[in-house]
């Protein structure tokens, strides 16, 4: 029976978080309602009339679905082989596959643009995804589909981003499955064929994990806007549509049309994503249950080192995961030099000098890095305990048979992922303006949206770990006469410690790369983060050839920091742990 103080404490955290994560949206919606004089239902029904809305919805659904499918196609073989065999540098491999997930979108966009431009291998191989000549152009002409090359580039970039989802969900399951399950199946009538084994064993065991990763992948691709802006400039997703008009929304008697668009689009997006989230949380629950039945001894030991096919697959994935980041870093050393005799490229450190000295902006890279770390650590200090308490509350509700409440809270913690970053920013801006304008002077204000967006991930990582801790560990410890603290430590915490480190590094990395939600918040130059710095430089006119490489230099620092955090986290992740997100 939990103590009263524990219940009160939990209640406080839960209520505070739910309010914090939903109030901005509610507030923004209320403001939009008053500005547009329509109810949310009316806004929903008027959605088709908002200019570009239907096209944006159609495009968003198409690209998000295609991205999810491609993520599974790319990621599943990698996850399979990674889990199946014993790899020498497993830690490094896992870290590299995890890093894409937290890369800032603008850096990724630049990296992919470099990979598909006219100097790229892809172009030389005849696949022009950018200017859409050759095969792509012919296809466009024949089918009447404008910009198939851009679409392809976009979904490949999304698949790259979300690769780690499928690997993190599926690989541990494959790695830890008792070989007896597979052996038994191969000896039964229905298990004689590959199809039989897929249908009767692998799909039931891995299916929930794959679907969970796919639905999360759908969600993240759905809310993408920076990648869409750069890779598919002729199209809009709902989010990029809202981003275009978000700056002038929510103001009485001023550009009411933008308020209408933002209101309608955000409701439609919210409803679709809510569905995706509900599905995700159901699937993850099912996945956790299946997973709890596997053995302690993995299959890897019995399968040994990887086969040739496995190596090809995983190493190809490794190169794919690194390629955009390497491309972006390399671009920081390449300086263009145009004279009357033509344009040449030289290799040099000028951009790095400019970045470190802060010549082209209000901040140097080192100052921006310090700011990024301050925000990141601030976010961690709040998000980790809050997420932990939320996860353990959900778990406590589950184990005490309050399944409905558990489910409701589970979905509630995911809600911020369904809410457009624009709405979060707008809501925070309006809310703070209304009630506490002095809060704007607080330079740490961006931590608020960072916390809102990272807590769901902490919960997603901690919750399955908590579900899989056997109560017998604690019982054994108490029966041995250990005091409550040691009982908690040996019987519980030591099993949660690994996931907590993973959650921490993820939170730090997300905070480092995030700028979307803070987009609408007033930004004071001296508190710019690395991602804001990259974005600022990339948005500038690039007459000066140093601008772009300097931005890439800043991006490289960001990437290295994120990468380092992940390597660190992987050391703490226990072998074959079923983390997932």
């Amino acid at each position, binding site marked *: 029976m939990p103590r009263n103080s524990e219940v009160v404490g939990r209640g406080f955290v839960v209520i505070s978080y739910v309010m914090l994560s939903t109030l901005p949206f509610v507030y923004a919606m209320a403001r939009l309602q008053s500005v547009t004089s329509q109810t949310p239902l009316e806004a929903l029904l008027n959605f088709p009339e908002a200019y570009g809305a239907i096209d944006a919805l159609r495009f968003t659904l198409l690209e998000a679905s295609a991205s999810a499918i491609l993520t599974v196609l790319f990621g599943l073989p990698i996850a399979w082989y990674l889990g199946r065999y014993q790899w020498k540098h497993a830690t490094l491999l896992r870290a590299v596959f995890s890093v894409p997930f937290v890369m800032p979108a603008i850096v990724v966009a630049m990296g992919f643009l470099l990979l598909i431009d006219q100097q790229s291998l892809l172009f030389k191989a005849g696949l022009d995804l950018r200017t859409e000549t050759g095969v792509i152009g012919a296809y466009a002409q024949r089918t009447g589909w404008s910009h198939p090359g851009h679409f392809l580039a976009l979904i490949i970039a999304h698949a790259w981003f979300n690769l780690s989802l499928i690997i993190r969900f599926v690989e541990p399951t494959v790695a830890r499955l008792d070989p007896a*399950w597979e052996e038994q199946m191969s000896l*039964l009538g229905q298990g*004689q064929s590959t199809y039989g084994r897929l249908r009767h064993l692998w799909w*039931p065991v891995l299916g929930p994990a794959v679907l969970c990763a796919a639905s999360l992948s759908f969600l993240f691709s759905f809310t993408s806007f920076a990648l869409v802006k750069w890779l598919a400039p002729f199209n809009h997703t709902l989010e990029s549509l809202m981003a275009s008009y978000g700056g002038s929304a929510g103001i009485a008697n001023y550009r009411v049309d933008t308020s209408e668009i933002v209101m309608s689009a955000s409701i439609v997006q919210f409803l679709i994503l809510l569905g995706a989230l509900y599905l995700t949380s159901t699937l993850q629950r099912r996945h956790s249950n*299946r997973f709890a*039945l596997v053995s302690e001894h993995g299959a890897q030991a019995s399968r040994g080192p990887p086969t040739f096919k496995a190596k090809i697959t995983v190493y190809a994935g490794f190169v794919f995961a690194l390629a955009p980041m390497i491309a972006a870093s390399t671009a920081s050393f390449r300086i263009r030099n145009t004279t009357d005799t033509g344009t040449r490229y030289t290799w040099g450190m000028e951009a790095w000098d400019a970045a470190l000295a802060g010549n082209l902006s209000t901040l140097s890279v080192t100052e921006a890095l310090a700011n990024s770390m301050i925000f990141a650590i601030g976010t961690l200090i709040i998000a980790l305990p809050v997420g932990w308490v939320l996860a353990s509350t959900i778990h406590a509700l589950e184990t005490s048979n309050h399944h409905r409440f558990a489910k409701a809270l589970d979905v509630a913690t995911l809600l911020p992922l369904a809410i457009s970053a624009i709405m979060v920013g707008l809501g925070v801006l309006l809310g703070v303006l209304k009630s506490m304008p002095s809060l704007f002077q607080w330079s740490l204000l961006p931590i608020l949206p960072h916390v809102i967006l990272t807590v769901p991930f902490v919960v997603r990582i901690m919750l399955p770990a908590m579900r899989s801790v056997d109560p017998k560990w604690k019982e054994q410890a108490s029966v041995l006469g250990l005091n409550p603290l040691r009982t908690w430590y040996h019987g519980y915490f030591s099993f949660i410690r690994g996931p907590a480190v993973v959650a921490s590094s993820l939170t730090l990395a997300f905070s480092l790369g995030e700028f979307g939600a803070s987009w609408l918040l007033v930004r004071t130059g001296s508190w710019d983060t690395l991602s804001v710095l990259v974005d600022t430089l990339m948005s500038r006119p690039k007459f000066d050839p140093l601008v772009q490489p300097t931005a890439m230099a800043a991006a490289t620092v960001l990437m290295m920091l994120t990468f380092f955090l992940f390597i660190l986290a992987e050391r703490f992740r226990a072998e074959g742990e079923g983390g997932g997100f």
Partner: protein
Amino acid sequence: MNESVLEINNLAKSFDDVCVFSGLNLRLDANEIVAILGPSGCGKSTLLRCIVGLEESDQGELTFASKRGTEGVGYLFQQPILYPHLNVASNIALGFRTKPSKKERQRTIARELESVELEGFESRRVESLSGGEAQRIALLRAMLGQPEVLLLDEPFSALDLETRRSITAQTREWLKHRNTAAIHVTHDPEEAELIADRVVPWAALFDHREEE
């Protein structure tokens, strides 16, 4: 002399230079139940895994009388591997080597369950079964493929004494009724005596001829 269904000559198996066994010989006749008696860890399970093809032997010959070869071999693991996402009937159905109609399938499964005194268990969840019930169902499933040889890898060791005795006797009766040859490995002499026509000590497998 009965015709043999399985002949093993000079079989050897090592794992990473550690020899598990070598020079192993065994002959199994049709309808015969042989119990191999040996302590834990001596290599009994490895032998069975080599016979069914889960491991590859390093040396020696494995000759099946039937053309089906390893396909005609059934296997019962130490722990009953019943899939938790399927109910009892669906688990059993995995054993079919052909594709019977739904009606035929249901009839067969019902009949099989009745034969082991588990009528009505079709839609039960596997988590709700006792150890003995689970192992009987695993046995049913293994037999559905109509194997010429059934390999039993200490399948009853986790059960309590009473259950073990009754299920061992039941299994023997059942195998005899279906004319199925079997190799049963165990460390328990009583169990070996109960089930087998012939008990072979592990060490005897390495003489030129097996002795009783």
